[in-house]
């Protein structure tokens, strides 16, 4: 095994191109588990910790946030929680403080687990994954197209994840996750919702209930047309229930050690109704504060 330790982003891209079988490592919270258990023996580890720009975030001229792939969960919570509340809530459910100090959203995307906690909120906010190779430059991949299978993503062997591009929240966002305790839990299933009031649109993300994280498109379309965006009237029980049903129908879960497919479908419909209720109540309260 080789251990590659580029000090700059350009060197990291060159190293990955020269050794496409190298496994990039940030916090190591997934990669090192596989190595410790001898589940995988990559031909090389590419340590991205020294690449400083990966650990930074910035606001682009159009207002979009560009969050470096190496920003750990703890900083997504403390530094970006006000602008990316859904992602921050999801980050807070990851592992333990020690894991959140090391793990990154970029690593979550690289691992592309169907249960990755970052994925649902990124789907709900239409995030874009910025990837780069030394040969072909930058590629911007909508996160909904990034996941291609169980633990598979759209990265080419010579590409690395540079950043996540996502608009700051323009409305309420929520993330909820089912697990056996409040920490150290891989999601049984999870759900994220984001209201985009300016576009009168709802975003969703389903986690751990299909081969890949996915949006509940029919549920989004139904709810976007159903909500009283201008009057901010109360949410009807029938609309919330229908939303939950459509989210459930969008899932394709399996039975496994963490839960059954039936339980996941049911729990998703509950999480969908619940997070919608929280989000819509916030949206309504926002008007009351403004008036």
């Amino acid at each position, binding site marked *: *095994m*080789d*251990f590659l*330790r580029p000090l700059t982003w350009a060197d990291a891209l060159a190293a990955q191109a020269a050794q496409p079988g190298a496994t990039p*490592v940030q*916090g*190591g*919270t997934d*990669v*090192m*588990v596989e*190595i*410790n*258990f001898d589940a995988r*023996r*990559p031909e*090389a*580890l590419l*340590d991205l*910790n020294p690449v400083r720009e990966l650990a930074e975030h910035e606001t682009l001229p159009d207002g979009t946030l560009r969050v470096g792939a190496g920003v750990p969960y703890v900083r997504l919570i403390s530094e970006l929680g006000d602008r990316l509340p859904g992602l921050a809530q999801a980050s807070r459910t990851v*592992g*333990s*403080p*020690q*894991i959140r*100090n*090391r793990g990154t959203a970029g690593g979550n995307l690289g691992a592309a687990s169907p249960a990755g906690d970052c994925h649902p909120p990124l789907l709900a906010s239409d995030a874009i994954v910025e990837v780069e190779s030394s040969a072909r430059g930058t590629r911007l991949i909508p996160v909904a197209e990034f996941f291609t299978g169980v633990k598979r993503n759209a990265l080419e062997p010579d590409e690395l994840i540079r950043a996540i591009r996502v608009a700051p929240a323009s409305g309420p966002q929520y993330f909820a996750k089912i697990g056996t305790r*409040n*920490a*150290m839990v891989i999601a049984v299933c999870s759900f994220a919702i984001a209201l985009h009031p300016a576009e009168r649109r709802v975003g969703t993300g389903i986690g751990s209930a299909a081969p890949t994280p996915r949006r509940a498109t029919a549920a989004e379309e139904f709810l976007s047309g159903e909500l009283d965006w201008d009057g901010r009237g109360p949410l009807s029980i029938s609309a919330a229930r229908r939303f939950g049903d459509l989210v459930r129908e969008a899932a394709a879960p399996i039975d496994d050690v963490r839960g059954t497919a039936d339980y996941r479908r049911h729990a998703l419909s509950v999480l969908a109704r619940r997070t919608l209720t929280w989000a819509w109540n916030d949206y309504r309260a926002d008007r009351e504060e403004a008036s």
Partner: protein
Amino acid sequence: MRVNVTVNGAKKTVDDVWEGESLLYVLRERMGLPGSKNACEQGECGSCTVYLDGVPVCACLVAAGQAEGREVRTVEGLAPDPDREELDPVQQAFLEAGAVQCGFCTPGLVVQSHDLLERVPEPSDAEIREALAGNLCRCTGYEKILDAVRLAARRKAEAKQ
């Protein structure tokens, strides 16, 4: 490969490190620092918690090469002067509160609690629970562990006055 790392204030160089080796293995097996415990090797138990550049991490999930040029502080490096019998207030509180049963989880809990009190000098119970959520005690002595953290917080506050 060779790894250069500062551990508890001393610059160390270790050779013949396997590229997939963890920082925990290097600390325990190559540097003779067995304080950090090896249990789950997957970040679940917190027994190997050490400071890496001042941030608590699971040493089992840090590749040894990732520690190159960085500073590690282990449970062995918490006491103010290793030559005297003086302990860090968190260690002393764990002893006095009876927060140690088999002792295997203790080093990780001590380091994690130490970090909590550095950041949040007067933590609420909810804050203590969240901070220690990734440190498992199979003896299930959690009540005494919470007592110890509260005691250490009081001691440190008194010492500042």
